[in-house]
């Protein structure tokens, strides 16, 4: 990694307490992505997702590190990172619950499902449980409207989820 990234990483120590080091595998995965596109900037979203897959979120130090690998400005990477809802710029729980709050799930009462989740977990949308186990977020129509209300936990989509199912369903996610 070149010196720019190292300097920026040093700078983040003060605020983060941890220097960010891009994992070798991740860097190779990002470099591999570059081959698919005419311009390196195009690999930006995938690069953020690669980092997020390892860390659960995108730490501040990852932004200049990714920018360096792609050869683009850190501000561009940050602008992209903050735009997309599935890129997390703050730490999230070990499991992310995405609750569909779009129309068909509204009509099949996702609000009751949300209330049950909020009660069992003791958090609202945008929050993480104090044990760091779950983060709760709203999401656009999950394309599972024939089985609403629908939600996703990590990579798994479920529906229709009744409020009474919540406690048992969550047990599977340690």
């Amino acid at each position, binding site marked *: 990694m070149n010196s720019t990234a190292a300097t920026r990483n040093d700078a983040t120590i003060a605020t983060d307490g941890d220097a960010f080091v891009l994992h070798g595998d991740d860097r190779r995965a990002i470099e591999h992505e570059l081959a698919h596109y005419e311009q*390196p900037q195009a690999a930006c979203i995938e690069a953020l997702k690669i980092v997020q897959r390892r860390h659960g979120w995108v730490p501040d130090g990852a932004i200049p590190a990714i920018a360096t690998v792609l050869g683009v400005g850190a501000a561009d990477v940050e602008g992209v990172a903050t*735009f997309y809802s*599935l890129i997390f710029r703050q730490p999230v729980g070990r499991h992310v619950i995405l609750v569909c709050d779009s129309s068909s799930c509204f*009509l099949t009462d996702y609000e009751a499902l949300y209330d049950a989740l909020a009660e069992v977990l003791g958090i609202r949308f945008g929050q993480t449980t104090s044990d760091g186990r779950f983060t709760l977020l709203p999401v656009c*129509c*999950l394309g599972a409207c*024939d089985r609403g209300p629908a939600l996703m936990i990590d990579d798994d989509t479920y529906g229709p989820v009744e409020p009474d199912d919540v406690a*048992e369903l969550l*047990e599977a996610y340690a």
Partner: protein
Amino acid sequence: MTASRSSLRTSLRYRCQLRQAAAERRAETHPLTWRLHDDNRPLGFDEYLDMDGYAAVREVLGRQSPDEVIDQVKEANVRGRGGAGFSAGMKWSLTMKGEGIPRGYLVCNADEMEPGTFKDRLLLEQQPHLLIEGMILGGYANNSRYGYIFLRGEYVEAARAVTQALEEARAAGWLGKDIAGSGFDFDIALHTGAGRYICGEETALISSLEGSRANPRAKPPFPGQSGAWGKPTVVNNVETLCNVPAILRHGVEWYQGLSGGRSDDGGTKLYGVSGRVNEPGLWELPIGTTGQELLDLAGGIRDSKALKTWLPGGGSTGFLLPEHLELPLDFDTVGQYGSRMGTGLLTVVTEEQSVVALLRNLEQFFARESCGWCTPCRDGLPWVVKILQSIERGEGEQGDIELLEDLAVKLGPGKTFCAHAPGAAMPLQSAIKHFRDEFERGISHRARAAHEDPIPVGEV
């Protein structure tokens, strides 16, 4: 305990399921789904090959000219299944190509996020080879150098199926250099998204593909002239592209005949129903099938309630009434009734459900998903939400309905960079038109001189 836990997970796990059994589906009548298994297992590569798979590619590449391909797609009149209904053949004929023009891109829009829409998921998860075949043919017709499948990030299952299918197709020579000995080179990459509905708008999708924030771009230039990295770029929906192989294999007349005189549009459509119906689901049916036929297939409304209103094709289409159930659902017909066919997946609203509350939910969606580029969309939509919330609480003011109507005009076609704001205006306008009394019941205050905390709404 462990067993019951895993069985709850298994029983609740979402599986995309077509509601027609294999025995009902035939190659001549169900070109999109006849090959699918009953148990929602993805169709294997060998199975696809055994069932006439890649036959259209073999037949067309190198034997017909790209223009001949375009002419057939145009004559078949396959209208864009992403919701706007633009003729795919017409779009392809407008793509810049020829001497001195660089080869560009064919992009499959697999961002499916329109509220109430669950159709592309089926094709992506269970039959990705049909999409790949359609993309090879589209790439050939448009002289594209490379293809992308822009897939929403949440479709994890689809990403797995598509990745595997791309590898299989490449290994067998259906992708890469000199496909089927035709001299045509074309490959496809999977690009997965990271959220935001606006990515589905075709110019925003191109911005996102290039690795930027998903801001739409002004048209012209159209993507077919200057799209991804300034090259001619064709964007088509998953279902649109999946229609192409059978058109080229069985001919235009056959394709037109599929709608059986119900519609001037050709082919079949993936139609669906969601909401409080007994058996929500997804079907491949002749284009021009009516809302009533779909509602019947969905087993009618739960608890024997009556239908109040319905959206014919997602959250950005206009509300229709029970009397409209008899209309053939195609692009031109639905367009005459203050709505659009959109994605063709019905959202059913029953008699006891509140139109104002549903509209508030829809407008919250549009407000949250606005990219923030144009003033009416960025500032107008939160204002709409605020007014709807007060009407919902029964605390609306005199003049609020007129204000909503005025905002709907300001959000309408031609006032913003993209069709997101007009998409938000359509359910708003149609809800007030059909259910004005419900809005009036939420008005309890006299008008104030000026609205508290007004949010300015200007022109772009």
